[in-house]
């Protein structure tokens, strides 16, 4: 979870974001727009998948271990 936040942050700030800022389009959408929404969607799906794998009522001890 924590890792997801950190990776997300790194992907959304320069210099990584700059890498995808080129002047061409995918399906008529500029690459950078496509990239930002793509990262966003990926984050949402990853969180959803991770949350499903966590115990419904996380135990306190395992909760500490996770962090």
């Amino acid at each position, binding site marked *: *979870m*924590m890792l*997801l*936040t950190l990776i*997300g*942050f790194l992907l*959304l*700030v*320069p210099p990584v*974001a*700059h890498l995808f*800022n*080129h*002047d061409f*389009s995918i*399906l*008529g*959408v*500029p*690459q*950078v*727009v496509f990239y*930002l*929404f793509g990262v*966003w*969607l990926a*984050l*949402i*799906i*990853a*969180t*959803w998948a991770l*949350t499903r794998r*966590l115990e*419904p*009522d*996380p135990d*306190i001890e395992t*909760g*500490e271990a*996770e*962090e």
Partner: protein
Amino acid sequence: MLSADLVIATAIAYVGLLFVLAYLGDRRARANKKIWLNSSTVYTLSISVYCTSWTFYGAVGNAARSGLEFLTIYLGPTLVFVGWYFLLRRLVRISHLYRITSVADLLSSRFGKSSRLGVLVTCIAVVGIAPYIALQLKAVTSSIQAVAGTSEFGRGSLEGIDDVGLAFGVAAGMALFTILFGTRHVDAKEQHHGVVAAIAFEAVVKLAALVAVGVFVVYIGGGFEGIFSRAADLGIDFASSTTFDARWITTLVLSIAAIVCLPRQFQVTVVENSNENHLRVAGWAFPAYMLLMSIFILPIAIYGLSVMPANSNPDMFALTLPLNAGQNGLALFAFIGGFSSATSMIILESIALSIMVSNHIIMPLVLRFTPSSQGDGQGMSKMLLVARRFSIVLILSLGFSYFLFTRDSDALAPIGLISFTAIAQFFPALLAAIFWRDASLKAVTTAVTVGFILWAWTCFLPSLDSLSPAIAALLVEGPWGISWLRPQAMFGLEGWDPLAHAAFWSLSVNVLILTLGSLLTTPSALERIQATAFVDVFRRRGMPQRNFVRGSATANDLFFVAERVLGEKRAGALFESAARESGVEPAVLDPTPEFIGRLERELAGSIGAASAHVMLSKVVAGGDVSLEEMMQMADEAQQVIEYTQQLEKTSTELRLTAKKLEDANAQLRELDSQKDEFLSQVSHEVRTPMTSIRSFSEILLDSDDLAPAQRRRFVSTIHQESLRLTKLLDEILDLSALERGERSWQNVPVDAEEALDRALLVCDALLRQKGMSVEVGERAHVTMVEGDADRLCQVFINIISNAVKYNDADEPRMWVSSTVRGGSYIVEVSDNGPGISKRDRKLIFEKFWRGVEGSGDQGGAGLGLAISRQIVARMNGSLELVQGAAPGACFRIRLPIVGKRN
């Protein structure tokens, strides 16, 4: 075409619908039928109060003006929610355990229940949020004006009313609505199920409205591709190199802070959370909601730029595009969507702020100025509600004032970012509160204060530049002409974006002071307790805070306090349940510390932790003293622990001693049995010669006819036997005399080598008899030691003869060597005999010891080695058994050389 009257009527009808929804929601919640109210869907939708009219109108305008920047406002919260497990879960757990009601409550509770910090945070929040509320008023006003401006029915009832009047009307309406909504009763946990239901409904409305407009725009604009190609035609460049600059990072960080620290977000995400598991859904669903919200913003902005006249307000594109296309129904829906997003924000924000104001500013004042003996049952509860209503009016009028001052600026998003920067000042303190044990009250207070002052100087003040020429002049020249204090170029940092500049200075100084200050100051006892309770919230499950140790208060006093705040019914229920648990009548309930702790948390749920603490301190005599007592108790506990550790240590020592004693005892027993054996041996030894002496003397007495030769032989045998006896007795006497130190001799320098040679010579006959070969190794030549030559010779003879006597090898051999090493003269005598078993090694130098396997016919009485050791010791040397090269035993004699005795 829509008329302004129709729009206003729709808005009022919509508010009426919301009110009905909230009322029904409350009814269901009270009837405990909150199945759908309590779901994670409603929870997630209520969090989306984050998407205000800033999103609905402002984001479009922002996208039209500065491209992709608007995305950061939603990407920041996404990052926070994606990591919900890390931060939000902890916040929710802490708030549930300690009945936290707001950010101010969290910080004041964590930092030693400080009321001053609570007041500070509340004031900053109220001032900082004012621009944000102004933004909503502005959005609503502009949207109504946008509709009215294009209306062919003229301005209707709006004739003669300008922006200010309209905004005032909106603000007044909102105040009334919020008061009706949020302050009908004081709730135990500050949860407003009805309001949350209404907010969730509004979330659906605004999403649907924006998506509807978006789909419409994409449809008439020729799909995404068509719209983006329009952008290219217009020369709008999203891929500009300046997109990802300092401002991008700044807004991203600010939105991360805002989603946690904004009073209304804290309210819906943390305080209104009724089940931690709802976060699991919100973790991905809220980002998804924001994704849906923002996916159409860019197309709307681009299409608006391409078809609307150049001077139209891009903030209103969501509304003006459908109007322009003649889609009145859609335009009305869009208006409702925007209205919806504004109302939900204003309602929740003012409720959250009013809770902060009443709990942290008004309640402490009331408590200070009214003696606790006054007041009737429901008084406090009523007072609380009045305080909240007053706060709501205050907050909205502040927002309205800000709107009044800044009505000339037209963009929405920059106004919101001013608020974000103010609220972000809490973020470092909040993180420190729940993750850093050493963060201290003084540091946090200073850090937040300085951060706020810097914000006011670099961010808030410049936004008011149109208010007076003095401010504008200040911006250009700095105060009193000091150029390095210019609000937008502090310390000569010029050329930065004003927002990035303000955020950089205020937040970095804030963090710096917080960190350094915490390291330099020592937190108080209460702070330490609270720090542990907050930071270790997942380590200890539901540990009650016990700041009041000895209940000097009676149940009556406590009930009185509880009744004032909670009302008679809830106070009664609380006391009855406590009485039932302890099995006594409510009247004679003994207030245990646990109960007082529970009562404090209940009160905290209504009036905040600091106020609850103050109130109970008044009743429970000497709250601070109790705390000292507690620390003392902790010290006592520490002493007991130390004492126990000492006891343990002592008992370990005792165990060791006992073990040693046991060993000694075993040795004694061994010696004792040896001694018995020796005595019988001595008796035997003495008896054998005595028997022969007696029998030979009897023969001599009785027989007169013995040949002289025979008689002579008998007499000589008697003589020999007597000599043997004498020798044995001499040895015993010698040893005991040596041991008691009675037998002494003069230690004089003697040649040890000479004594060794003499001993070898004496033993020559013995060796020959046994057929034992002697190998003389290295010799030391003339070496002088302190001692007695005869005694030394006796020791050598004893050891050599032992080696001979106990050797049963087929080819008995012996090695003798002498060296000088390290100032000592060393003689080693070893053989290839059976050696000495490990068990016997300790015993061989004991008196009366005889080789266990050695049979009685070996002669000696088992005193030889004991005597030898005594003699060597008397010469300041040592005699020991060592591990030699040969298979048998190896004895080493070590004597100090003359002149080098040290």
